[in-house]
């Protein structure tokens, strides 16, 4: 019998919400966590808004050594993983470490730490031959972000396969998809899987400024992220992490675990078109959606809710609207579609996992989170995007998608336990 994968624990660090409970109330209230950047003086930059997390690592039990050594993104992941494991109700110490793996997504790794350490060793950019005497001993861990997976493996004492998956903005879906592969093939029985990113740093803000990908709506930061709205003009950079406990479904049932959802299907494709551009027809994302539904053994009629990528750039929102129509046909018009990036911004590699968390919570709470700030529909985006207010809605199967630089297009189907295809 084919092995199946269940989500049995969730942990979230999001802008405006630390912890799953706060995260869900933010989403279901339709509150936005975008604001003027406070981490540094943003005045030299075109886009000065971001969705920042009010995260105090000490309050979550990290030691001063942990905080010094780990990039902010690694700190997020460790704290979110603790919440997920507690939530899973599992007796962690009883498990066989050989059978537990780690798969964590991140698009930009330890960017924030690298930006900071670079300033020191280069004397504010004056030196090309940067000075090693000023480099901290943990710089190598920032250089190669597989340190994020290593931190989780050490913290939770796991000895199964560990890796970082880094496919840009689809990393958060792809890392969880990879974890499912490992459980299904029998390499592991359990995975700590999810994603993290903490990109709100001058170098990231500058690089998105350079291609006008982020919004310049600096006079109204709370309403700056406007997916599917005709007035949208770029995404709002975010940060955060969502980590899950994934288990082989039968063993999860045997231990009486609360199963939030089954990860029924996942697929990824490449558009082979442009490193940052998208073809308007949504062809490759549609193909990923079809492949994910095929793996999940559901058809378009089973999908009750689409958790969109919805970044709020002009081209993305049209691209994925086209992809939904192409893959789901008339069903695309019948189901709610929403983008939580309207509330928590776009945390690059992390957001795919944060959106999996939102999808699972939508299913559990019979409520679809809204697309905040949607007042003026774009005629080319003509689906039901759940404007501004959450909707009571029974969902048994969610489609969540991601699209990213490098051309990656990913899709995942999550089903209510007992409601998926047998």
């Amino acid at each position: 019998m084919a092995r199946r994968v269940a989500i049995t624990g969730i942990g979230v660090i999001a802008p405006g919400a630390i912890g799953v409970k706060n995260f869900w109330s933010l989403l279901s209230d339709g509150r936005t966590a975008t604001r003027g950047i406070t981490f540094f003086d943003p005045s030299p930059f075109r886009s000065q808004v971001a969705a920042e997390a009010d995260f105090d690592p000490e309050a979550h039990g990290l030691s001063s050594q942990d905080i010094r050594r780990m990039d902010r993104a690694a700190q997020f992941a460790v704290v979110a993983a603790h919440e997920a494991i507690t939530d899973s109700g599992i007796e962690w110490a009883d498990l066989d470490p050989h059978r537990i793996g780690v798969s964590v997504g991140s698009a930009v790794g330890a960017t924030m730490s690298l930006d900071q350490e670079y300033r020191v060793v280069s004397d504010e950019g004056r030196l090309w031959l940067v000075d090693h005497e000023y480099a901290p001993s943990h710089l190598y861990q920032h250089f190669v972000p597989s340190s994020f997976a290593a931190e989780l493996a050490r913290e939770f004492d796991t000895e199964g396969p560990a890796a970082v998956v880094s496919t840009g903005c689809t990393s958060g879906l792809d890392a969880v998809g990879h974890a499912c592969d490992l459980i299904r093939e029998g390499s592991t029985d359990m995975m700590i899987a999810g994603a993290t990113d903490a990109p709100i740093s001058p170098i990231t803000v500058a690089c998105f400024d350079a291609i006008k990908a982020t919004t310049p709506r600096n006079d109204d930061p709370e309403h700056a992220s406007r997916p599917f709205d005709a007035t949208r003009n770029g995404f709002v950079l975010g940060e955060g992490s969502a980590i899950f406990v994934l288990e082989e479904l039968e063993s999860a049932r045997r231990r009486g675990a609360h199963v939030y959802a089954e990860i029924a299907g996942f697929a990824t494709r490449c558009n082979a078109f442009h490193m940052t551009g998208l073809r308007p027809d949504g062809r490759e994302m549609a193909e990923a959606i079809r492949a994910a539904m095929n793996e999940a053994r559901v058809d378009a009629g089973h999908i009750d809710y689409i958790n969109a990528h919805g970044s709020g750039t002009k081209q993305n929102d049209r691209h994925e609207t086209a992809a939904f129509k192409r893959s789901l046909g008339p069903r695309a018009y019948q189901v709610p579609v929403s983008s939580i990036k309207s509330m928590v911004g776009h945390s690059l590699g992390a957001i795919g996992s944060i959106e999996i968390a939102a999808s699972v919570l939508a299913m559990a709470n019979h409520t679809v989170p809204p697309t905040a700030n949607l007042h003026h529909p774009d005629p080319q985006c003509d689906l039901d995007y759940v404007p501004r207010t959450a909707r009571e809605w029974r969902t048994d199967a969610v489609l969540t998608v991601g699209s990213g630089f490098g051309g990656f297009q990913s899709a995942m189907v999550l089903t209510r336990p007992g409601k998926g295809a047998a």
Partner: protein
Amino acid sequence: MSESIAITGLGVAAPNGLGKRDFWKSTRDGRSGLGRITHFDAAQYPSKLAGEVPGFDARSYLPGRLMPQTDRMTRLALVAADWALADAGIGPAELGEFDVGVITASSSGGFEFGQRELQSLWSKGGRYVSAYQSFAWFYAVNSGQISIRHGLRGPSGVVVADQAGGLDAVAQARRQIRKGTPVVLSGGMDASICPWGWVAQLASRRLSTSEDPESAYLPFDARAAGHVPGEGGTIMVLEDAEAARLRGATGYAEIIGYAATFDPRRGSGRPPGLERTIRLALADADLDASAVDVVFADAAAMPELDRIEAEAIEAVFGPYGVAVTAPKTMTGRLNSGGGPLDLAAAALAVQDGIIPPTVGVEPIEDYHLDLVLAEPRSARVRVALVLARGHGGFNSALIVRAPR
């Protein structure tokens, strides 16, 4: 579908040879590519040696428009991918739109590109940062650029697991082929020999400070005191072995086993994961240890890590029980490119019946290793095991055998 996956094309960029032919000739002959760093003036740093890919003129292979938007590692990866496809005799146009994927490993992304843009940002201001910075440095760039260059739209991905990641990417490609994607380009390429990348690597405290290229990187030797970093790697074409045979391609070798583990945390009292990784890979290949003809060692050249690897090999194969080699003594450690380069060498060893040497090393007797030293060894190589370990505790093992 058959269970095995064929390596049907190789694209190599190594410090001791650009291109498969030059690399293999140098490697068989024991010719090293280690030397004093030329990419920048390393006089002020405690480590001054590296393995740099010689004579790589990207402009002679790639269109000029790609130059401002690519780091050196991406240019090497693009050219290696071109060569791998040509070597496999496969044209993506002959395949279905979603039939070819790209799954690569990365360790540090386009770090030199990143250094330049960081310098622009902090010395001049945000307006001077390149429009290409948003993707030219990030870990996914090689998979994305290869996919665009050849119109490859199949399942694609990027794995980061330091030096172990290259084998993990190949294993990920194997999974996708088993799930039904006919062809995947895979491997790894890194090139972070720039001042900022150098300082980051120095921080690992695993770099040799020797100034003599002949004796700077000596794994399994009493003089082992760190490694020499290198740049480069391998991009390869992987196909379902049966499908490859049907189109008349035999391939160099077939991938038949793989495993990955992570070391227990210090103080746990549990043994390191490498021995278990080897045993899991053998079980995955359904092979007895006695079937293995050669082990391509990770060869960290840190005394404790060397001892762990020697003990793992002895535990599985017995004292002097299998030929062991570390051709990376001629290239340095290439981060994500290291595993795929060793895999290329293993595939060529299988094809030619020659085990390439480990240069400069006088192995510690207590390790009980049958290390292939100084001269290449002629041998019937049916099965080869490739090991790779990443900083922090990553272990990967991959097994190839001669095509049936």
